């Protein structure tokens, strides 16, 4: 492969005069091309062309000194509470479940589509929009989703549910620590579903 072409420019051997062979200046570039492509392959494999994507998240502002009146109030009718639990299950109920005498109806769904949590969020949004149109709620009221991941949920659930918020255009949502009451809701619903 790496020979140097020394054939010169055509040999006329007729004349008796011996011509000095002209050395060609042509160099075989094949090995150089090989080397070039080898290095290209190396750089292609080590490079990170696509920059990692990130998701911005704002947690609710928490301050011990904050006064009760300054805390933002969420209307029961705009709220939807999602409880993330094991096996990528989502328990949900409308409102915030703050009335102990009147426990909310807790239902269970998952992240599968269609028919999963996305439909629940879309339905809730439509409901709030209808309430706003009928005048029961102010136009400034927006669907508020409270996300409470429990101890059995994974990070993937957490990212998925926040992603659902941006997919469905929910502007107001908050990730809150799960309360014992909510934990109780999950256990009760689980027990009720197991009996079926």
């Amino acid at each position, binding site marked *: 492969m790496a020979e140097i072409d020394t054939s010169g420019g055509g040999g006329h051997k007729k004349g008796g005069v011996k011509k000095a062979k002209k050395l060609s200046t042509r160099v075989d570039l094949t090995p150089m091309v090989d080397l070039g492509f080898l290095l290209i392959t190396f750089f292609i494999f080590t490079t990170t062309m696509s920059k990692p994507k990130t998701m911005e998240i704002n947690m609710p502002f928490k301050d011990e000194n904050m006064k009760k009146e300054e805390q933002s109030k969420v209307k029961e009718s705009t709220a939807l509470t999602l409880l993330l639990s094991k096996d990528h299950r989502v328990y949900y109920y409308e409102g915030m479940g703050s009335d102990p005498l009147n426990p909310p109806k807790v239902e269970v769904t998952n992240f599968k589509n269609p028919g999963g949590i996305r439909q629940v969020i879309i339905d809730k949004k439509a409901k709030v929009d209808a309430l706003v149109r009928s005048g029961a709620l102010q136009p400034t009221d927006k669907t508020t989703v409270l996300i409470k991941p429990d101890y059995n949920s994974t990070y993937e659930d957490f990212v998925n549910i926040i992603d659902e918020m941006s997919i469905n*255009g929910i502007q107001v949502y908050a990730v809150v620590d799960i309360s014992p009451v909510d934990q109780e809701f999950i256990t009760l619903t689980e027990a009720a579903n197991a009996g079926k």
Partner: protein
Amino acid sequence: MSRPKIARKSTFIDMTAMCDVAFLLLSFFMLATKFKPDEPVVVVTPASISKVILPDADIMLITVDAKGRVFFSIDNKGIRKALIENVDEWKGLGLTDAEIYQFSIGSSIGAPFNQLKGYLSSTPEARSAYDKTTAGIPTDTSVTNPDNELAMWIRSARNNNPKLRICIKADGEASYPNIQKIIATLAGWKIFKFNLITNLKAVPPGTYASQPAETAAK
């Protein structure tokens, strides 16, 4: 009698052009490349539709692997050096210059303070073996807990560079309480805005996010 001469074509191809192309591509890749930072653990991040690109500089990276082990890293070599000097002074680790240098050129750290000196003085092979077995940086939900070493790392890093953007890169399998500890630690330092590193996935059709921006704004 002479046979008609068949012009013998040479099989020799001029490689110059190909060589040019190869080296053109090579120079492109050499300039465009940014080496993958060596990660102590493999992390498979969940996917989201977010298209925000992670900025290049001023990053604090908190890596959480599938078992919930926490690793801490910041990007700038100079700041890393300042950070480790602060930590060394504060915790009285007694690091040598060589160990400080090892930290500044290294990547994510998953060693608790009391094992940090041993970790930094060992060989790269021993370090990667250590990363596989370590329990990660101890974390807690309260920043006042002296065992919450992540809180101390975050605090010293932010003292050195207040512009640091905090990114959490966690494995999808990591259980939520581990993430909650980090979020609570950040909240303890009054950090309520941070980034989660995710993979990109397609926007599901027919949803709010798939509509063009002008209709979505209405």
